[in-house]
């Protein structure tokens, strides 16, 4: 089959590799019909995610048709059309039982779990196509993928809904939604959201769905800000044109936003001296993640408010204003998305017309074009907001 393989920073190749096979009794094989590039794939593309190996198959946002099931798969059968959540979860451990699916105890193969335990203390769930720390599983930017615990993750979707409408159940729609849910939105709340990429867009929409009075969206790309404004009714701030901290205070009666949501993560684009500091520190590997947005979110947030992190962090950060967070009594919530928990309710919202996530797609390309797709998505060429690849 054809698959998108990582071979180093800025080096994605479409290669012919063997087809996946059933390796465990609870596996299924999916023939992929749509697969997307995620903003978090760009962290791998840029070389910031450790334990990638040359030849690893990318991709964790995919859907398709079941073509084979292992002997212990009961709920899925050949021909079912499914969307696959990006975390791999066994469904039977303590964490899966508490709806904390991205913390599953049993999906990360032992040798990888042992590695990441040294760094994190414990191993979270494995993720498709997201480095050997997170399991080393072949991803879904390919013609076929092997899906472990197939009765637990994949959600069946009816034929009436298009791929474009349900594909993002795999990651970014639940991710935006969970980040908004983590804001603990109360009547009258104003939510500030940094980053108007796909997750940011869905976080804005979700914040309104969950009852936010106003949402203020922050980015520097005019087309992304325009999308936030037009598609979801957010107020917008371009951080290259305005001091965001001051603006947020003025726009919220001096109180600050009740919740601040970071939909950017470890490669935040900082301004001025501080931005330069983080770029240098990250380049020499003195810090692994650039936390500009996190810092600004903490300082901007109203006293007693909530900071919610959706953007991915992987390692260590520097100069976090812990004093501000502590003395303002902030609540911080974060984590990889517990996708499984949100699949059904969000599919319902899609089916009853509350959300049509397909509006964020700017490019639909054949799988063979993956190397170019990564380039335009990363560099925001051609007003690229989201790429869907068709195997």
């Amino acid at each position: 089959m054809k698959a998108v393989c990582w071979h180093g920073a800025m080096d994605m190749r479409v290669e012919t590799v063997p087809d996946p096979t059933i390796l465990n009794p609870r596996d299924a094989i999916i023939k992929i019909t749509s697969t997307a590039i995620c903003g978090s794939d760009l962290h791998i593309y840029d070389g910031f995610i450790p334990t990638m190996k040359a030849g690893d198959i990318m991709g964790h946002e995919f859907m398709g048709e079941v073509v084979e099931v292992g002997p212990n798969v009961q709920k899925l059968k050949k021909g079912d059309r499914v969307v696959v959540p990006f975390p791999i979860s066994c469904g039977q451990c303590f964490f899966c039982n508490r709806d904390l699916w991205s913390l599953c105890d049993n999906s990360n193969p032992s040798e990888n779990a042992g590695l990441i335990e040294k760094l994190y203390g414990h191993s979270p769930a494995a993720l498709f196509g997201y480095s050997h720390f997170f399991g080393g599983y072949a991803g879904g930017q390919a013609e076929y993928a092997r899906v472990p615990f197939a009765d637990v993750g994949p959600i069946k979707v009816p034929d009436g809904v298009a791929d474009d409408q349900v594909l993002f159940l795999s990651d970014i729609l639940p991710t935006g939604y969970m980040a908004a849910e983590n804001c603990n939105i109360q009547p009258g709340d104003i939510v500030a959201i940094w980053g108007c990429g796909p997750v940011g867009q869905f976080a804005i929409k979700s914040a309104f769905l969950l009852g936010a009075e106003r949402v203020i969206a922050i980015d520097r790309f005019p087309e992304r800000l325009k999308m936030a404004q037009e598609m979801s009714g957010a107020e917008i701030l371009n951080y290259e044109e305005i001091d965001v901290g001051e603006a947020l205070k003025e726009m919220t009666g001096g109180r600050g936003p009740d919740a601040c949501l970071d939909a950017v993560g470890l490669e935040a684009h900082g301004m001025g001296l501080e931005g330069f500091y983080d770029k240098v520190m990250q380049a020499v590997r003195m810090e692994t993640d650039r936390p500009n947005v996190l810092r600004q979110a903490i300082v901007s947030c109203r006293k007693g408010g909530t900071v919610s992190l959706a953007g991915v962090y992987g390692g260590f950060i520097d100069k976090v204003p812990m004093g501000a967070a502590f003395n303002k009594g902030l609540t911080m919530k974060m984590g990889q998305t517990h996708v499984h928990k949100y699949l059904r309710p969000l599919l319902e919202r899609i089916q009853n017309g509350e959300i049509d996530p397909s509006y964020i797609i700017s490019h639909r390309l054949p799988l063979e074009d993956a190397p170019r797709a990564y380039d335009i998505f990363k560099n925001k060429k051609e007003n690229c907001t989201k790429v869907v690849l068709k195997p």
Partner: protein
Amino acid sequence: MEITTNKDNPPVPEKVGQMGETERWSSLITGGSLVLLGLKKGSLRGALMALAGGGLVYHGTAGQKGIKDQIADANESGSITVEKTVTIFNKSPEELYQVWHNFENLPNFMKYLKSVKVIDQTRSHWVADAPLGASVEWDAEMIEDRPNQLIAWSSVEGADVENSGFVRFQKGPEGRGTEVKVVMEYNPPAGAVGAALAKLFGKEPEQLIGSSLRHFKMLMEAGEIATTEGQPSGRQGDK
């Protein structure tokens, strides 16, 4: 255990030391703290012998000595000790004990074992992979068997690698499942064979036991052991 405290007739001073020691090992092994930390310089096998009743089961030469001496002796040879614990959700100590009690099940999750053959009620024959396609073998004796709680074993004389250990099953706090602790001790022999065996057992014994316990947990909770072996990639050689 035969150790009880009689309030009316306190034990005579000479016996206090002996009983105190045995009691201490017993509570160390069944208690909540780090076993190896409590053991410090003592040997695990010595402690297990103490638990089983002062060296009566083991066909060793140290039987005449006090427990304290046994424990100290056995550790002079530079043994390797490991202690690892996992919690297994939704399984009772009884269920997990049942699986472990049949030693022939062990190779299913202890991947370095080729096979374990049960000979009789207490004795079994173990074969493990060694470097360069070789294997090492030994007979082990179950030296303590407390149903649904604890199984302790030790290699008998003549083993390629002297080893001993125990697994303990304890109900965790409400809704957490069962805590499974494995403590093991290896004494690789000297010489070339010993070096190879040390490589096998001594290189990353924590990894070996940690991995075995993770596999056990996966099997018990998820019904299978997570793997990516055999999946495609764009690496030369995998194609």
